[in-house]
């Protein structure tokens, strides 16, 4: 059997990383936690997790130099998985902290769920990927979010989910996968998604350009 692939998991602050680390181990990877931007540059796989708020997380990514390394990694198209807040951070901005610039890899905005709903959305909801998706399959995933991406950026293949409104629950492009839900908490379906990404991403590298904000 091939050696377990090394996966750098970015510490974005006080996030609980135990679940994502355990999930990656179950998927056959050898994950490690890092606060060193050079790991983001050189690691074969990177995971951008995220629990907490948009503004403070961006501040830490900017101050540590992680933000620039992530944009470079996107331009090079190297395997990267963003989870929950991680997906939101790829965007230009969020209603959670107006005025804070996101990574800007996706030039779209994150919105709050309508206040008529129970917030946060906590629980299992259906994920419906487009048929051209490479990693994502139809199934149920566990969500814990108050904010969401309403629309899909050009060049990304989405999955959609409905919670009062229709929103983008995951996107993929080349070796990049971003999930609003938690694959590490989504049972066998989530485990299969992690395995799909680990095994297929290295052969799906697509280079891109990050447009200046």
């Amino acid at each position, binding site marked *: 059997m091939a050696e377990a692939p090394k996966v750098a998991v970015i510490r974005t602050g006080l996030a609980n990383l135990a679940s994502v680390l355990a999930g990656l181990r179950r998927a056959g990877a050898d994950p490690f936690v890092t606060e060193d931007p050079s790991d983001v540059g050189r690691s074969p796989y990177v995971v951008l997790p995220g629990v907490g*708020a948009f503004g403070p997380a961006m501040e830490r990514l900017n101050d540590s130099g992680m933000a620039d390394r992530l944009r470079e990694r996107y331009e090079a198209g190297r395997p990267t998985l963003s989870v929950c807040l991680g997906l939101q951070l790829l965007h230009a901005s969020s209603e959670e902290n107006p005025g804070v610039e996101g990574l800007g890899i996706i030039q779209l905005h994150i919105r709050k769920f309508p206040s008529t709903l*129970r*917030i946060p959305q*906590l*629980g*299992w909801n259906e994920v419906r990927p487009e048929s051209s998706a490479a990693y994502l399959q139809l199934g149920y995933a566990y969500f814990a979010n*108050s904010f969401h991406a309403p629309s899909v950026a050009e060049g990304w293949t989405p999955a959609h989910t409905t*919670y009062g409104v229709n929103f983008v629950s995951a996107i993929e492009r080349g070796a990049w996968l971003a999930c609003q839900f938690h694959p590490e908490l989504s049972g066998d379906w*989530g*485990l299969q998604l992690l395995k799909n990404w680990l095994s297929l991403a290295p052969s799906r590298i697509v280079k891109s350009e990050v447009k200046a904000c």
Partner: protein
Amino acid sequence: MLTRRIIPCLDCRDGRVVKGVKFQGLRDAGDPPTLAHAYELQGADELVLLDVSATPDGRATAVETVRKVREVLSIPLTVGGGVRSAENARKLLEAGADKVGVNTAAVENPKVIRDIADQFGSQCSVVALDAARRLDGAGWEVVILSGKKRTGLDAIDWAAKVVEFGAGEILLTSWDRDGTRSGYDLELLSAVSKVTNVPVIASGGAATPQHLLEALDAGADAVLAASIFHDGEYTVQTIKQFLTDRKVPIRP
């Protein structure tokens, strides 16, 4: 569409799952990771691990138990029991809890709810609200210290307040019904779910699938039960089938 959650609860003491009525006469019910994994296979949507240890040594064991459960568990894990500070919460989150429940400490010092929400996000801040019908029958009051102390605090007002303090979910236990097998307190449940816009988990009194259905109809977003699963009377799977047949949105 968001599905309703079925949540088995593991009461743990000194590294073992225990069961008993109102924490009296506890009997050994098994090894936490083994039971946790079995419930995931049965289709549990989430697990609650409640540490009912009474000693500091027991508390330290709870962190170890969380770590062991996390390694085998691919569904969310909420841990409660004896959490008094954001620092306690941090230890449990680092060990692998996804959410932390605060009970007595939240009543004594509501700032702890805010501290946990600020540091780790509202989605990991669960307030465990234990309520009992007032002795004169007029409404419900909050009880603390495992039901030993009545606070006089109105349970419905308190439910609305904890959300202002940053709670992302309420685990609502009826102390009158807990361990009685007479069904959830539906009136309490409906009153609480009307005054808050965060998810509400119903707890206390479940003995049949019908009880779970009633709680979901009364406004619960999720239902928690312990003994009906531990006794092997029903599996999560059979209960999910019962609810699906009655048109409740349930994860297959």
